[in-house]
Every structure is written in C-alpha cells, then in structure tokens.
C-alpha cells in the first residue's frame, strides 16, 4: 500500500468539510484584531513592535490551525482504518501514522512561519500546536482518553485568554517546544497500536463526519406540507425541495436562518467580518437538490432537467442575494474594502489569494445576475461534479474580470454595465439549461 492512498482519501466527503474548516482556520481567527477593527491585520506585517491584538491573533491561529488540520487528518485516517478488514491491509497502520505525522509537520511549519513573521514564539507555538493536533487526530480514531478531552477543553479556554499562552511562551519557550517530539511519539504509538485498530474496525458505522456536524444535520428540519401534486415543473420543484429538507419553507427560510444564526454567533465571538463571507459559503451545504435519481418519479427526463435547473437557479438566487448583501455590508461597515485596495502590496501571498477569492466570488455572482449553481454532490454520477467545477471556473473568471473592472467597465455607463450583466446572465442560464437537458437525455439517473 502506497502512502498516496492516504492522500487519495482527500476526495472523501470529510475532506471536503475539512477543506472548508481549513479555510475557516486561515480566515476567521481575528482577521481583524478584535480590539482594533479599524486597523487591518496585514498592516502589522513586518513591523517590529507587535501590538497586543496581533499577539492574540497569532495564538488563536496557533490553536485553530492544528484543530482544523487534526479534525481533517483524524477523520481521513478513521475512514480508512474503519473499513471492513482494515487490519488485513498490509502496512495500513504504518502508512496512516506516517500520513498523519506528515500533515503535522505542515501544521507546525505554518504555525512557525506565522510566528516568525510577526516576531512571536515559533518554537513554543509549534509545541502547543503539536499537542492539539495529536489530540484531534486521535479522537476520531477510537482513542478518547480524558487527557484528550482535557487538551481540547484547555484549548477552548485559552482561545479566550491567549495572553496566558503568550506569557507561558515568553517564560518557557524551550520546555514547551519539547512537546513536539512527545506529541509525535504519542501519535505514532497510538495510531500503530493494533488494539485501537481492531476496536475501530469492529464499529460498523465509522462516522464520516464529526459528531457535532452529524448532530447538526439539517435533514430533519421542516415538515411535509401535504402531498406533492403531479404535473407542472413548479410542483416537481416543490417535490424536490420536500425530498431535500422538507419543503420550500425549510429550504429558503429555516436553513438560511439556521445558518445565519450560527455564523452570527460565531462571528460575534470572533469579532471577524470574514464571517459575512463564510455565511453564504456555508449555504452550499444546504443547497437545493433536484429530484433524487433513485426514486422512480413519474416525470420525464426533460422535465427532470427543468426541475434541476429550477432548483439550481432558485438556490443561486438566494445565495447570490445573501452574498451580495453581505458583500455590501462588508464594504460599508468594515475596513475590508480599503484592504482590498492594497491587494498588490499584501503579504503573505496565500492569505491574499484567499482574501481576493472570498470577496470577489460573491461579487461575481451578484454581478452575473445569479448564474445557476448545480449541486456539488454526485447524485447523477460524475457529470454533476464536472458541471459544478465548470460553474466554479466560470465564477473565478468572472471574479478575475471584476477585480479589474476599473479597466474595462470604467468606460461604460451604468445602463451599459447593466446590459452587459443581463446579457451575461441570459447567456450563462441558457448554456446551463442546454447542458442539463443534454445530460438528462443521455445519462443514467442511478
């Protein structure tokens, strides 16, 4: 078994959520220092005197990065170790252990890089991150000791008191750094222990998602409000919504409200305007699906294509509206717009790229007058993902164009700009509908 097999698991559902958490980790933790919202994070880059707010930010990042990576790597490892007869795969324990250790190295390097850049405590930060990472990797892998719970709880408490970490690091940087080899050894020993692997393999339902995500499953929200009527596309659209989360009301009121509430609370505690961006992004998880292929709905393939189009368009309408409003709020009430003007001079490049993407994509969606977003899951075989990627590429192209809008849109009057957007919208909708009809006419539904 090659170690690449471990990384192949990145395609699994948990990895998708993991990527989301990773972005979250990079963007959320006090992107703007909580006690100085008027001053962008990046303006401190390279300065000798590090304000207290940036110290807070660094240590919060030190806590959240290993947590996010640990959840992802731990769940990926669990999904591999949990398959039937996992114990019989040659070298599975060794490869999984090495894989998680490699990810740990990446986490520690990023942590050290951040602390080094801001004049923090790279060694001590790596020590803290290593312990936290190891705890989160081991937790979904059948090793749930009290010490792991203790570490997780301590990390949560330290989130609110990062100055304690700063004091400890200033006083005892090297002893804290010793936690790095200790964590590595702990991880390696536990993950290679056949007893834990056996215990996990006995569990028939190895969770693909962390428990808190599964418990927050939106599937149960809403009630069926009467039987769907046969006939028109609209009634089948309602039928699709019922299959998804229970109905139109759930889809367009309860789910967005639930998501908004969650991110508002999260954003309040983090004091980060980036939660405005995360909110519309998170709505992807509750996207409206077309008619599931497995049930034999008495509806033709052509009508199914129309229903799928309507689902995507309706969802996009909601998505783009929320995205547009939040983008406007960010530009109006946060210093983000000013920061975006400084894009070429920003450091580091990765954060810049993510910042540009998150701000530009909703603008692109709004400006394109809601081009439809297909469901990013694989309900009707692989074409669904390809179509999704196609639309993402479209969004990215539109985003790049919009970032440079001064160059090519400046010459247009508002009416002309509106016309361009309208044409773009009609074109994208027509192409999308055409592709959907071709797919539904030719491909298997199950």
């Amino acid at each position, binding site marked *: 078994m090659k170690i690449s097999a471990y990384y192949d698991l990145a395609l699994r559902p948990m990895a998708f959520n993991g990527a989301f958490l990773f972005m979250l980790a990079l963007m959320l933790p006090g992107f703007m220092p909580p006690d100085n919202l008027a001053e962008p994070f990046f303006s401190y880059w390279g300065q000798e005197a590090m304000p207290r707010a940036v110290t807070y930010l660094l240590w919060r990042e030190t806590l959240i990065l290993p947590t996010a990576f640990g959840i992802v790597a731990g769940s990926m490892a669990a999904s591999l170790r949990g398959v039937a007869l996992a114990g019989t795969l040659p070298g599975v324990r060794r490869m999984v252990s090495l894989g998680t250790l490699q990810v740990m190295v990446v986490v520690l390097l990023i942590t050290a890089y951040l602390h080094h850049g801001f004049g923090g405590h790279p060694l001590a930060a790596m020590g803290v991150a290593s312990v936290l990472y190891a705890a989160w990797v081991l937790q979904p892998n059948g090793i749930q000791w009290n010490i792991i719970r203790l570490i997780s709880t301590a990390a949560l408490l330290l989130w609110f008191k990062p100055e304690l970490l700063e004091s400890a690091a200033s006083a005892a940087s090297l002893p804290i750094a010793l936690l790095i080899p200790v964590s590595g050894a702990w991880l390696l020993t536990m993950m290679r222990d056949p007893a834990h692997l056996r215990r996990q393999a006995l569990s028939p339902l190895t969770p693909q998602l962390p428990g808190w995500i599964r418990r927050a499953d939106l599937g149960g929200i809403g009630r069926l409000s009467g039987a769907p009527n046969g006939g028109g596309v609209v009634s089948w659209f309602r039928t699709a919504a019922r299959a998804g989360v229970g109905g139109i009301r759930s889809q367009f009121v309860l789910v967005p409200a639930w998501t908004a509430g969650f991110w508002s609370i999260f954003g309040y505690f983090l004091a980060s305007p980036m939660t405005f961006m995360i909110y519309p992004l998170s709505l992807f998880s509750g996207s409206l699906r077309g008619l599931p292929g497995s049930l034999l709905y*008495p509806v033709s393939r052509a009508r199914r294509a129309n229903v799928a189009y309507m689902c995507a368009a309706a969802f996009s309408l909601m998505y783009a509206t929320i995205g547009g409003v939040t983008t406007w709020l960010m530009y109006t009430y946060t210093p983000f717009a000013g920061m975006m003007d400084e894009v070429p001079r920003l450091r580091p490049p990765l954060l810049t790229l993510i910042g540009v993407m998150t701000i530009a994509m909703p603008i692109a969606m709004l400006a394109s007058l809601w081009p439809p977003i297909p469901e990013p899951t694989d309900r009707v075989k692989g074409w669904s993902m390809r179509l999704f990627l196609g639309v993402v590429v479209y969004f990215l192209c539109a985003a790049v164009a919009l970032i440079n809008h001064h160059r090519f849109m400046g010459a247009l009057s508002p009416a002309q700009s509106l016309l361009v957007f309208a044409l773009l919208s009609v074109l994208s909708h027509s192409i999308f509908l055409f592709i959907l009809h071709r797919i539904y006419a030719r491909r298997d539904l199950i």
Partner: protein
Amino acid sequence: MSYVEIENVTKKFGGKVALDSVSLRITTPSIVGLMGKNGSGKSTLLRHICGLQLPTSGVCRTLGTDTAVLDSPELSRIGIAHQHDSLIGWMSGGRLISYVSGFYATWDTALEERLVKLLEINRDAGVATSSPGNRQKLSLLLAVCHHPTVLLLDEPLSDLDPIARRDVIDVLIEEFQGHDVAIVISSHLLHDLERIAERIVCLDAGRVVADASLDELKEQYGSNLDTMFRRIVGASA
C-alpha cells in the same frame, strides 16, 4: 399491448459489459423470474426497463415507449423496488408513503393499509434507522400501491423473514396475478421464485442464457430451480 421490448441491448460501464446483446419481450400479463449469479446484470436490466439507466446500444421500450423518453403517463404505470433500498433516509415511513403516494392518481389507500398491517410496517420509524428488512417492506409497498402495469422487483425478498416472504408472495399473487400486469422479479431465493414465476429468464455475465416457461425448463434441466440454475449457468460457462 407489449409490456417490455428489449432488442439487442448492450450496456457498458466504462470497459465493463453489464448487458451483452440482451433481448427480451413480455407481451402478456405474466410473472417473469429473473435468475443469475451476482453481477450477472439482473439489476441493470430492471433499471433499463424503467428508464433509470439507458442502453449503450440497442432498443429498450416499455409500454410501447422508448425508455429514454418515458413520460408521466408511462412512468405512472411502472413500479420498482430496488435491491438496495434507495429511499429518503431522513423521513419517517409514514411521511415517505404520503410523499410518494402524492405522485400517483391511482394510489390504492386500502392496499397501503393492508400492506402496512400485514408486513407490520412502522409508520413512525425513521427510514434510515429501520432494519434492512423493514426498509425492503417499505420499498415494496411504495412500488405496488399505485397498481403498476409493469412491476419490477429487484431482490424483494432477500432481507425478509420467512413469514414476511410468504405474505409478500401471497399479496403479489392475489393482487396482480391474472390482472393486466407484467411482473419481473429477480431473486436468489429460487424456491420462492418457483412458487410464483411462470417464465424464467436466466442471465449470466450479462447475456440471456435461458428464457422459457418454468415447465419447459423443468422438462429440460430438472425438477427444481436449484438444479436447473446450476445446470444452466454451468452449461453457459
């Protein structure tokens, strides 16, 4: 009227041939038993008949219409119970029944009640948390209660206990045999199949290796389906 017409249908999944020049015609109301080893193409054939899957080549018609363009009038007359349940997991049994019943003007509430009682289906239990057997019962109920003209049952008995199996077979015979219905039922439970099937189609590696009435096959291969199956599959290998 022709219920099912399949002419030289080949289905490929990538490089794998699932159906290889399969031809099958069902022109009279009957119960057709579909036999074959695992992976012989039984489920694929049933999915082609109802249009959920389309052939790579060949012609597949159900109720006189090409399965690629089946519309509401035809699809309302087809019922299918999948081998692996493909129900909406977050719903309760009762909610799912009310959801599906809304698709059909011909939904028979009396039959629904009878099956719920006979098969001891718990309307309040969540679909996802029900046992495989209970999900199979639910799947069966959803496939038959709108009185389909073409009923496709993919391993409908495999997860049921002996009493439920007998009840299901009795209901199928009582409700559908002698009516204007063609039933295609795939099963590995050959003794149960022997009780209801009038005609047997045997698939092996995606090809039809036997297609005859039960009596003809018994005469040719032996007295029971077990022996018959071994000989047919053995002969084709």
